């Protein structure tokens, strides 16, 4: 099969709206769950954020702002995805967060690897992601998987089973978007 045939198949699959729906529910549900886990005990999340040493402790406002708002931003984006509202914006927001999380988690693991001479894949810690203690060699592929799910939503043209897929309809692609 040629590349064009492959593209045609993918497009037809995308047009059914099923892959997008499944991806939205999985990614949105996961972020709502993990966001709630953090939002219920925000001080625990605050302690986790502090352990990354990415944000200065003094003045404390920045650290506290992150701990207070990030879990709710995750819940908000997850809800938008599940409801099918502002899909591209939500997916991009989650993608940016996921890339950021993955970078800081990897940096922290590398720091532990160098300072404590622990084999990289033997490192496990609670990354503050809402899923408890995890092996770093499991966490990174999992995050990459979630990034791919975000990209699928970002690139999908289908708006079937969405409440309000595009808040701002992209002018250049508006002609290509199939009606619901």
């Amino acid at each position, binding site marked *: 099969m040629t590349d064009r045939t492959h593209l045609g198949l993918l497009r037809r699959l995308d047009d059914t709206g099923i892959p997008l729906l499944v991806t939205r529910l999985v990614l949105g549900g996961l972020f709502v769950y993990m966001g709630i886990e953090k*939002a*219920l*005990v*925000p*001080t*625990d999340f*605050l*302690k986790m954020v*502090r352990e990354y040493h990415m944000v200065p*402790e*003094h003045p*404390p*406002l920045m*650290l*506290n*702002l992150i*701990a*207070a*708002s*990030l*879990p*709710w*931003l995750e819940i*908000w*984006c997850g809800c*938008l995805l599940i409801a099918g509202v*502002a899909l*591209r*914006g*939500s997916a*991009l*927001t989650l993608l*940016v967060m996921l890339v950021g999380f993955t970078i800081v988690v990897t940096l922290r693991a590398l720091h532990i690897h160098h300072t404590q001479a622990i084999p990289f894949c033997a490192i496990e810690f609670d990354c503050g992601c809402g899923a408890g203690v995890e092996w770093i060699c499991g966490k990174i592929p999992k995050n990459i998987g979630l990034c791919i799910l975000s990209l699928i939503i*970002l690139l999908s043209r289908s708006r079937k089973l969405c409440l309000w897929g*595009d*808040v*701002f*309809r*992209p*002018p*250049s*692609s508006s002609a290509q978007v199939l009606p619901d």
Partner: protein
Amino acid sequence: MCYARTVLVECVLISAIGLVIGLSANAMYSDGVELGRDYFPRSVQVFTERPKVQENHATTSSSDDDDTLSKDDQDDPLADVVSFLQVQGHQVIRHEQVVAFFEDLFYQEGFYVIIDARDDVNYRMGHIPGAFQCDHYRFKKYVDEVLPICQAAGKIVIYCNGGNCEDSEFVTVDLMDHGIDPGKLFIYPGGMNAWKEMDLPVERGERGSGDIVNGLAVNGDGHD
């Protein structure tokens, strides 16, 4: 270009709304983060020099100097933690002395007070019998109960899980900030883990629940 800009605008709009929702929800949530509060006061030097232990409550058989750990305790696995706490200006107390406090009649009478600085989950899993809970991160919830007790007490032992846990240190700073004499405050570096390892009695559930078991029977190592 227009497409990218549209998606970016959507992303910024969603983030801004999410931020507003987050801060509003946090403000309404009773256990939310207090934005202006310094939750990690350890990095602030709390003393310029190590405080003197008060001499006016000579109630135990040992002297005050015996109550605290010295930097010379080379065999102590917690030596680094002890040194660090002492550099911060805190007083630390030996495991044996905590046990002596616990068994002393003055503990029953409230002259000696033990404070558990851990969160609800850890406290309910098992604490030193009779210890008051005072979670640094929800200090407002406990301050009204704990402060009068600390003001009346002669010596106050504060612990968390032990080792590198910081909560006991933060509660010590909280109590000092609320006017408790630093000379009365002692940090127990071994904490709950050392207490359980020695198979000492552990109370589960609320304070005074009467559900007392031996330390080794309590599962879980706990966490900060």
